[in-house]
């Protein structure tokens, strides 16, 4: 009897505690404000940064049958703070709920701040906040981040987290933006021997962008008309040692993604100059990368030699000159055309980045490691310095797996 009583008493105490304690870590989930995006800008005050928070309103778009809630789907707040961590405290004077970074998807940094040499130390604060997950994305906006969030008004996905989820996911899948998670940012930073590519985004379109072929745009340059949101995710910002040094366009980003074995980019559509006579000068091809790149290096001597072989599988999508690909000769011609075109593209990208940024836009230094026995030797070799003078030999291995429809069939169809 006594034992039952004791057990019951303990249970009652337990129950009291569990219900009554509101302290410690317990927090009802509707008591929190979920930050979807953080924007970082340079502040007018010295030594401070301007932090913008994009908060999602859970009530909009998720409560079924609630009818038209008059509330807006999001809230955006910009204010000055000493650092990102402190910002969390400050913002509670404005927001009624506890700030939570659990759903943080994207950190947008204005180009202005990203090019600032202080940026590395600012972004490093993030590591200290355990709530920020390393799989949040880092993006660089052309305009101020605070403006970026304000301007960004997606039409289809009113809920901000959904918008960023779709936008980033599909952008990465297409290869137009790099997979720039914080995790990759920090590991690249620690490694210190390669460039880091962060996605480039803009909420404002440039006034009169120059027409460019296919994907050679950076954010804000893509011209499109119709009814849609102006925000664009294309191209990437180049970070060297944690500070932004330049930008590369969408096509170059795609190429860098293909070069980087650690991204799992699927297929990409590319236009190749038409080697056959005809009015249309481009052939659309689908490139697929299924195997890993082969990289060989000769690191002896003043100028290291780097041989990169990229295995590509190709599907021809169009055939503007109505060539009969059942002929071996034609097959060879198109193969060669694709080969030289892709090799040119890659070489151009690598030369461009080598010359301008002195480092490779993807973790190329990994491939060099196997030539060394110990870390010390590798460090003595000084990859970053040697790479500047390296000679890069690109080679694509083209395998055309599908030539498209047979010409005779198309002819028949036209008749």
């Amino acid at each position: 009897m006594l034992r039952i009583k004791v057990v019951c008493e303990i249970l009652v105490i337990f129950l009291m505690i569990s219900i009554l304690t509101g302290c410690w870590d317990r927090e009802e989930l509707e008591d929190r404000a979920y930050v979807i995006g953080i924007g970082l800008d340079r502040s007018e005050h010295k030594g401070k940064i301007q932090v913008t928070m994009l908060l999602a309103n859970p009530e909009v778009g998720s409560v079924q049958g609630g009818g038209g809630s008059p509330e807006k789907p999001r809230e955006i707040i910009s204010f000055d703070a000493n650092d990102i961590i402190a910002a969390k405290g400050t913002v509670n004077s404005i927001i009624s709920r506890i700030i939570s970074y659990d759903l943080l998807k994207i950190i947008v940094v204005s180009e202005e701040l990203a090019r600032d040499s202080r940026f590395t130390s600012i972004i490093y604060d993030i590591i200290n906040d355990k709530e920020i997950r390393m799989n949040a994305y880092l993006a660089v906006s052309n305009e101020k981040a605070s403006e970026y969030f304000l301007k960004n008004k997606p039409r289809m996905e009113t809920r901000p987290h959904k918008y960023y989820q779709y936008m980033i996911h599909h952008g990465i899948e297409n290869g137009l933006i790099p997979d720039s998670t914080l995790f990759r940012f920090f590991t690249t930073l620690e490694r210190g021997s390669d460039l880091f590519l962060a996605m480039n985004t803009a909420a404002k379109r440039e006034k009169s962008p120059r027409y460019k072929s296919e994907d050679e745009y950076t954010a804000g340059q893509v011209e499109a008309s119709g009814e849609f949101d102006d925000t664009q995710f294309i191209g990437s910002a180049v970070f060297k040692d944690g500070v932004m040094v330049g930008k590369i366009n969408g096509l170059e980003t795609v190429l860098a993604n293909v070069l980087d074995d650690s991204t799992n980019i699927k297929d990409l559509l590319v236009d190749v100059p038409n080697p056959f006579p005809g009015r249309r000068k481009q052939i659309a091809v689908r490139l697929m990368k299924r195997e890993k790149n082969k990289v060989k290096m000769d690191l002896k001597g003043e100028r290291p030699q780097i041989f990169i072989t990229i295995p590509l599988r190709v599907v021809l999508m169009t055939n503007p000159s109505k060539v009969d690909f059942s002929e071996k000769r034609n097959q060879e011609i198109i193969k060669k055309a694709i080969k030289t075109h892709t090799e040119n593209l890659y070489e151009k990208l690598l030369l461009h980045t080598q010359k301008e940024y002195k480092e490779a836009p993807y973790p190329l230094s990994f491939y060099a490691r196997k030539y060394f026995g110990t870390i010390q030797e590798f460090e003595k070799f000084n990859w970053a310095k040697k790479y500047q003078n390296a000679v890069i030999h690109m080679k694509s291995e083209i395998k055309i797996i599908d030539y498209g429809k047979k010409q005779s069939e198309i002819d028949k169809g036209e008749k």
Partner: protein
Amino acid sequence: MGKSILKTLVKVLNTKPHFNEQSNQERMELKAQDISTNYEQNLENFKQIFSIPKNVDVKVREFTIRALNRHAFIIYLNTMTDIELIQKSILMPLIENEHAAGKIQDIVSFPVEKTITNIGDITENITSGITALIVDGDHQCYVFETSKVQGRSIEKSDNEVIVRGAKEAFNEKLADNMGLIRKKIKNENLIFEHFIVSKRSRNDVMLVYEKDLINHETLHSLKDKLKAIEVDSVLDLSLLEQYLEERPRSLFPTILNTERPDRAVSFIEEGHIVILMSNSPNCLVLPATFWSLFHSPEDHYLRVPYGNFIRILRLVALFISMFSSSFYIAITNYHVGMIPPDLLMAIAGARERVPFPSIIEILMMEIAFELIREAGLRVPSPIGPTIGIVGALILGQAAVQANVISPIVIIVIALSGLSSFIISDTSLNFAIRLSRFLFIFAAGFIGIYGFGALIVLGLFYLTSLKSFGVPYFAPMTPHFFSSKDLIIRHVPMKERFRPGYLKPKDMVKQRKE
């Protein structure tokens, strides 16, 4: 020193009430006597014992045995006996037979069960439906097995429903139940050992086992326990279960209680002991492990893949009903990042208008669900189904619309409630339903850490449970030799061994010749 003071204090506070019991010394003495040869005295004695004529269903019929030309009377309870049988095979021969015969046995066509002399014994026999014949001048009493107890016939099993396999269930008649078992095991080694527990109402208990399989230590310890029960009456097998259990306060059962004879038989064949009791439509199986409670006979009746499918389903159901609501609490109150963003937004949006913290919300719904369940069980059957609908409608739909409960909580509770039905064993079912609340409190107290702590605590507790010396999770851990019928069962051909934790005399079920 302090302890002894405490003890005396407890003693002073916990005094047992004293009753002035009326002495029935006189009766006790009467019962201890043998019957006399004096007819009148015997009649007087029995009339006194059975309070005739106050006691309505006790019948005494006086007559003359013509063959012997002596007075005699029979005494029986007409509610417990087959009157026609008495009439035909006892009374008629005795009254009508005119041929002289020396012995009662020669007159009566009824097989005489035995002769008794002690009044107390006779009384006991009469109360269990036996007819007693007392003849003038005879110093012994003839008792005839005429009992015919009213009761249900053998019916379908209600509480342990299965699709395939035998449908019959135990009923309240001990003889029927024994027959149900006997007809499944046609082997002379099957023993029904009679045992009487309790002093006053003298309840019959049958120990059923196969004598060439059973481990005798277990049997002895069981018998010792049965002998040690010192109460006036043990009305039902379920009560006996509580007397026998090592830890009657424990949440988890350590004796299996089933109403299916086929299940009981399968355990007997493995070397377990089964206890039957008169007036109880079920039987006890011991020792019982977690696995025997968790398994259902259907697992084996179905083909291997199907049987394993429902087993895994049951395991999943067990986890869902035990953990889902507490996991919900832990996640929504402490580890919000775990929830997929869309769902999180939906929950947060719905919860914004709910006035209670989510732990109260969950508790409210859990209790509501238990109420519906209990009410559905107790209401008279014509309106039973309506209660379910009303409960679901009112508590589900209306509570959500009134912003008392958020819809996700309904899903969580419904899921955990439904899953709990899959555990067919009543005791295990209760154990899981109750421990669910413990988990809710733990999770509400300190999130997933408390949740994990309670799991470990529970596992420590469960592994330390023992059912007649058999660890609860045997033969998984501690390991015993067995046919490995735990979570996954194998084909029947491979299940060749009896569980090693029983230490049966014969380990291999089908010995290869």
